[in-house]
């Protein structure tokens, strides 16, 4: 089975360099852009959700989950959303940790975009949330593309957590990555 999630390690072409990447909130007016990645089974493969099949469900998700989210941004090229990146927050004894997650439309895979965006978030989240000490990410053992993204973004691989989640009815082993506020991001 072709593994479409593997990041292609090619030299960046000039047209790939510095697309006008930015982060901003996502709202219901972005529904059409949202549906591009949300309906894509390649994108949904390692996510908890199944590909969306109708706009109403997409709108509900944006209203009920995305808008109230403690920290979620649309990944934009020229202000057009091509994915999202988010950090969860915890309380009490766990407030030192936040979990990073992201999705990117498959057409934009393999160009280092996710790596750059993760780097952008790592630069700002510790300042925005002074109580945050640890940004962590859990990646399916088969999701080599995202493992590569996090390694390039300077995250440390801590270990494989066996049968850590049940994803779409199957137990999955997940790789745990972390970036501490005290770690240095590679430039």
């Amino acid at each position, binding site marked *: 089975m072709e593994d479409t999630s593997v990041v292609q390690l090619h030299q960046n072409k000039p047209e790939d360099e510095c697309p006008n990447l930015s982060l901003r909130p996502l709202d219901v007016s972005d529904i059409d852009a949202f549906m591009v990645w949300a309906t894509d089974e390649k994108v949904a493969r390692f996510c908890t959700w199944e590909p969306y099949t109708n706009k109403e469900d997409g709108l509900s998700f944006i209203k009920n989950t995305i808008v109230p989210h403690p920290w979620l941004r649309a990944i934009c090229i020229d202000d057009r959303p091509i994915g999202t990146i988010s950090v969860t927050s915890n309380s*009490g*004894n*766990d*407030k*030192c*940790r936040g979990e990073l997650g992201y999705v990117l439309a498959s057409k934009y895979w393999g160009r280092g975009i996710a790596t750059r965006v993760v780097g952008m978030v790592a630069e700002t989240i510790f300042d925005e949330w002074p109580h945050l*000490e*640890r940004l*962590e990410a859990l990646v399916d053992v088969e999701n080599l593309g995202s493992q590569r993204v996090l390694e390039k973004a300077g995250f*440390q691989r*801590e*270990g*494989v*957590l*066996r*049968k*850590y*989640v*049940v994803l779409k009815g199957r*137990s999955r082993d997940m790789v*745990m990555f*972390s970036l*501490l506020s005290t770690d240095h991001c590679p430039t």
Partner: protein
Amino acid sequence: MEIDLSKISLRPFKLEDADDFFLFAGDDQFTMNLRWKTLTSKQEALDHIKDVCIPHPWRRSICIDDRSIGFVSIFPFSGEEDKFKANFGIGVAVKYWGQGIATRAAKMAVSQFFVDFPEVVRLEAYVDVENLGSQRVVEKAGFQKEGVLRKYAYVKGKLRDLVLYSFLSTDFQAEAEGCLP
């Protein structure tokens, strides 16, 4: 004082264990790596047994000759997504450290727990990086070390690096069939 490990047993807590409970849980060294505060009175011990130990989904007293010298707890996570996982904790009275009692109790607890909770697939133990004694206990009991989670959580107000161990229901089956040490 060598203890014959065959005298170790596990059973639910009783209110009558309060005196013995206060003996071990009243010691700072015992509670050092636990979230509990050191108990300061027999009344607190009684309350802890009544309010925490007895209603707990799976907590057992570790006993020698039916006298309580510690506890072992396994706490299944709540919620649809997480109920296949559970958290393991153990503590033995300081005076009984170094004799293999905790390891023995841990092995007994894991065996019984997977029978009592067949839907649990993954048992986890989080151990402070500096708590070498407990790391040895869970390793000898058959848990597998998965990694060190840096600055993972606060325990008693201090940010800790925690070593994560797991014991899967499939490890348990393999061990029972003699495939794992």
